[in-house]
């Protein structure tokens, strides 16, 4: 690796073009490898573009699978596959497929722009994309065929975790190698979140997949891993990208670097505690409940700080900028993340945790955070980056704005009714225990099962509408990448 002062800098050129085919051709070196290995070519922004493209497909597929899982939860005999199989299958596609690849695209996009140095190991990243797609598709097939291990969230067998782990290490390798040769003196808040997310990602995955653990240790590992993955990688990196996108799209400087610092460290403090908080009153030490409740409060502090910071950045110009879908998506996504983390933090307290633990409440929190907040933050990044990546723009601002509204309403509605269903179940269990209405088998608890079912049914209607909105986001990004209107493009060139 070259020292930073000897590393060629990267600079941006803006070109006005009528299509991406007008761009100057990348001069192919003599004897250049063709076929699949040509993916290892390191044309600037190639990794970001390819990852974004692949993640878009996984977002659409994952949204449909998640809808199928919710349908199987409400109507167990509706589909030939049970909720227990559909759930991990959908999470593999959503989290390993869309979330990892999509946010990796964001990392690969912002790194050269914020460091002034070329993206390092871009060829490795391009090859890793093939591996990632194979790992995701193979994982779904393995779980569907009954080879899973039943552990949250992916249920992948231990021998399949090894290639997954290798794939998850790529963003960290690329990020740290690129940052090591940066030409820019300032380390921007976006890079803080990127560094944290990329370094936590493989470690949190490993914790949730250590083989040979007993029930309680295995369960705690799964919960810690899932919470870390969602909050530091998913929410953290998506928020970091918003810290890049919002000042760019609004033409305003970031309101407060200090508030961003609060957002980062609070996120890291509170990231994993909503996991063990779900085991309240279960096996494990009593002190874990208390510490989970207290440290879990750091999570909403983080999301509130970040959402406030983004809103303050746009604030002075909001009347002028409110019709820009990029900004609307970023702010709505940050807002939904606040709601999800507040709900998770409240459920960390014993009184609430014993009520909503093991209920659909947590499905609602997950839906609100991932399919609401993070999807919108991701869409904001994608819509901002596509013109610079491929010289095309989103086809319609009004259509994109409509998608933002639909995703916000539908994920909010789905989450609300799932949370209410979880509370109905929890109250019902307690009431049944007092009145002796527990059944020996079957539904388990009389009286409230019907209400919970109705509420989950309403949530399913919102989820169906929401899946169409998610497919709309996916289609919007795909169409912008492939056939959007031509616009000014930004290309990266080495300044050697």
């Amino acid at each position, binding site marked *: 690796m070259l020292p930073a002062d000897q590393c060629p800098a990267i600079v941006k050129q803006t070109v006005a073009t009528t299509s991406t085919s007008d761009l100057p051709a990348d001069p192919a070196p003599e004897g250049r490898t063709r076929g699949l290995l040509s993916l290892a070519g390191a044309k600037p922004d190639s990794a970001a573009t390819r990852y974004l493209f692949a993640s878009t497909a996984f977002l659409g597929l994952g949204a449909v699978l998640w809808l199928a899982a919710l349908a199987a939860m409400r109507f167990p005999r509706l589909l030939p596959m049970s909720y227990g199989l559909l759930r991990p299958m959908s999470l593999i596609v959503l989290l390993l497929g869309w979330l990892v690849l999509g946010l990796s695209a964001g990392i690969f996009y912002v790194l050269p722009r914020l460091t002034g140095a070329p993206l390092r190991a871009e060829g490795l990243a391009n090859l890793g994309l093939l591996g990632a797609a194979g790992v995701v598709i193979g994982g779904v097939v393995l779980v569907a065929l009954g080879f899973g291990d039943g552990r949250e969230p992916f249920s992948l067998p231990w021998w399949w975790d090894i290639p997954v782990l290798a794939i998850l290490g790529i963003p960290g390798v690329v990020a740290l190698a690129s940052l090591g040769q940066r030409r820019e003196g*300032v380390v921007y808040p976006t890079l803080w979140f990127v560094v944290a997310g990329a370094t936590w990602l493989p470690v949190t995955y490993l914790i949730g997949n250590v083989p040979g653990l007993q029930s309680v240790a295995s369960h705690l590992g799964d919960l810690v891993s899932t919470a870390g993955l969602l909050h530091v990688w998913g929410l953290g990196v998506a928020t970091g990208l918003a810290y890049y996108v919002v000042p760019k799209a609004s033409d305003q400087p970031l309101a407060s670097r200090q508030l961003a610092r609060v957002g980062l460290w609070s996120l890291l403090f509170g990231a994993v505690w909503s996991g063990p908080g779900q085991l309240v009153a279960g096996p494990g030490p009593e002190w874990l409940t208390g510490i989970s409740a207290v440290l879990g409060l750091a999570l909403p502090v983080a999301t509130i700080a970040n959402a406030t910071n983004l809103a303050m950045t746009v604030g002075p110009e909001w009347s002028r900028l409110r019709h820009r879908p990029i900004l609307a998506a970023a702010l709505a996504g940050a807002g939904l993340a606040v709601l999800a983390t507040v709900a998770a933090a409240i459920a960390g307290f014993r009184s609430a945790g014993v009520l909503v633990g093991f209920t659909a409440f947590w499905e609602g929190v997950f839906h609100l955070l991932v399919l609401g907040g993070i999807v919108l933050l991701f869409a904001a990044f994608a819509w901002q980056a596509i013109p610079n990546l491929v010289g095309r723009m989103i086809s319609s601002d009004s259509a994109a704005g409509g998608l933002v509204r639909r995703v916000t309403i539908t994920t909010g509605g789905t989450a609300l009714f799932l949370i209410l269903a979880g509370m109905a179940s929890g109250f019902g269990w307690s009431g049944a225990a007092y009145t002796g209405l527990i059944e020996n088998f079957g539904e388990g608890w009389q009286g409230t099962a019907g209400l919970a079912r109705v509420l989950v049914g309403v949530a399913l209607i919102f989820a169906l509408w929401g899946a169409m909105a998610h497919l709309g986001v996916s289609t919007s990004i795909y169409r912008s990448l492939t056939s959007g209107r031509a616009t000014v493009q930004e290309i990266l060139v080495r300044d050697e």
Partner: protein
Amino acid sequence: MSDLAGAAAAMGVPEALVKRSAEARAKATGSTVDEVLAAWAGGGTAPAAPAPASTPPASTPPPSAPPSPAEPLPPASPPVEVPAADATTPPAAGPVEEVAPRVPPVLVGRREGLGVLLAGSTGLLILSVMLAFLVPSLPQAGDEVRTSNRAFSTQALAGRTVYSQQGCGACHTQLIRNVVSDIGLGPVTLDDTNQIIGYRRIGPDLAAIGSRIEDTQAIARLLAGEGNHPPTVGLTDQDLTNLIAYLRESK
């Protein structure tokens, strides 16, 4: 060498494009083309353009300005835009129409380190893992006298694997907590449990299912899809036998 040729050589782009860009820059800044070309050829800074009226796509921060503590702002001089092509129009096979001058990267101010960020992030990761996972996973005081560890038969242990692979834990807990809502389900689950704790209780808790129902045929009918239970797919008779053994021994 003229300024035009010098600027073109310095930027590595054709003279025609440099001339057009210089004209656009001169018009935007109110200066003359010669001044702009002289600045570019000599490596100096061209007159800055006024702030754009509309937000252009992202580009580099202005080279003459010190880096802001916040995110970089869009450039002071917006790229020259051409009318956008209709989305349905097939791509034209023409050359690049406009290339804005390259702006050399500028490293201004103190170079911030990543050490504190990396150390802090890694430290919190280690702390979180220790407090939330490693320490709680250690044997707890009193485990030697309080046990819910069941002596499963070999067949039942094979059934436990089937239980995991089929994702039964996504809908069924095997966890009885010391709370009101779990009263009547059976003995409280302790730290040394060897059952599958599960993640949701969409169906009934199965921690002590073996003490509540002993009719093997009834369990088999449920697994086959009777009532509100989804049918199991792809399980062999041996798998089902093992699974039923695990449930019956869960007392």
